[in-house]
């Protein structure tokens, strides 16, 4: 059973639709109970970082996110809050990855929107990201490239498209919206 963390930060529906298409069982919940009944957790996320962190705090989910032993996948904002500090709203993240999340300033537009190629990063961690293929991105902030970066993408500058450490995987793109190649990541990671 995969638990989708419903902490008021959007795209729960598109994530649950994607899991349904893959035939993966899931539950949507906003209470700490989700960690007891799930063998893996997805932190979805679109919207503002400040609000997301405030919601996690209010719903008492942070402690479990840090101690949970099953696999956790953060998507988009759900990945960014795994960082230490987020420029958007000047907030502290979960600090799983000791990195910063900052505004993308070198691309032609404020928001990096569309399909972009994901290349292999420096981290030797075994991953399920299909390198050299396109995934769908939509974000204005991004995590810097760091030793845990397994996938890199470029929009005016390089940034972390995917990060991985122990049981945590963060993806800046939307595997639930990236066709069959995106779906394969969800499937392989949680299988």
């Amino acid at each position, binding site marked *: 059973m995969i638990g989708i963390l419903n902490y008021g930060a*959007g*795209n729960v*529906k*598109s994530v649950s*639709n*994607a899991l*349904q*298409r893959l035939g993966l069982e899931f539950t949507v919940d906003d209470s700490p109970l989700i960690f007891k009944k799930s063998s893996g957790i997805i932190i979805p996320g*679109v*919207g*503002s970082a400040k609000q997301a962190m405030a919601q996690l705090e209010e719903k008492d989910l942070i402690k479990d996110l840090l101690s949970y032993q099953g696999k956790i996948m953060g998507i988009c904002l759900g990945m960014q809050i795994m960082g230490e500090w987020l420029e958007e709203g000047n907030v502290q993240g979960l600090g799983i990855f000791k990195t910063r999340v900052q505004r993308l300033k070198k*691309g*032609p*537009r*404020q*928001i*990096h*929107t*569309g*399909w*972009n*190629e994901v290349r292999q990063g420096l981290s030797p961690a075994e991953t399920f990201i299909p390198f050299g293929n*396109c995934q*769908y*991105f*939509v*974000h*204005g902030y991004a995590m810097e490239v760091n030793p845990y970066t397994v996938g890199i993408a*470029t*929009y005016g500058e390089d940034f972390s498209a995917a990060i991985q450490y122990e049981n945590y995987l963060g993806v800046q793109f*939307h595997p*639930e*919206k*990236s*066709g*069959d190649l*995106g*779906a394969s990541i969800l499937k392989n990671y949680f299988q």
Partner: protein
Amino acid sequence: MLKKRIIACLDVQDGRVVKGTNFIHLKDLGNPIELAMKYQDQGVDELVFLDIKASPSKSKTNLKWVEEMGRKLSIPFTVGGGISSLEDATKVIEAGADKLSLNTAAFRTPSLISEVKTKFGKQAVILAIDGYYEHHEFRVAIQGGKMKTSKPVLDWAKEGEDFGAGEILLTSMSHDGTQAGFDLKALVKLSEKVSIPIIASGGAGSPSDFLELFQNTAVEAGLAAGIFHRNEVSIPTLKEFLISNNIPIRSC
């Protein structure tokens, strides 16, 4: 490198896909779910559904087909037509749409853009603008093109960006359905004016029109409807043609 997007637009009326010329003379072109799935399989990058009856008659978008699209599509899709309040927007997003296309209601009440942006994020708001020419001035039309306003398109686009729109979908009405090519002049000006992604719409008749669009403007995406629905241009052929001309395109 970020790829240029090819977007298919489905104008939906009473549960059927329709398409006209210069916004009138609508023809029945099939079932939206079947067409959407076909385009997804062919490698379209995004889909836009416009409930074209919703705005003029003030009826609301039928959420049943939005939900079905959400269940079946694994690529991003936008829904527009008749979204006139935060409540409407919430229903459409909760039904599974990734983005909303706001047009008439946003023009009348621009704060709707910021309300939707605050609740769902900038990326969920596409400001759709229908432009028409009068005495060489490019102005905004609303209500599915039926009501002409005196507002210059570029001014409204900039205001929309300031209110929090995440993308602009510009349809040049005088080009729409004519297959005479995109309105490059207007698109160049628009892309200098705003710093959010632009989707070009209206006038695509051949793969060369898309090539000209991407070679001569900075827009991120090209949208077409009729040429895809009538099988005049297939998405795989179009993408191969653009790739062979060195346009960054997602291959499938």
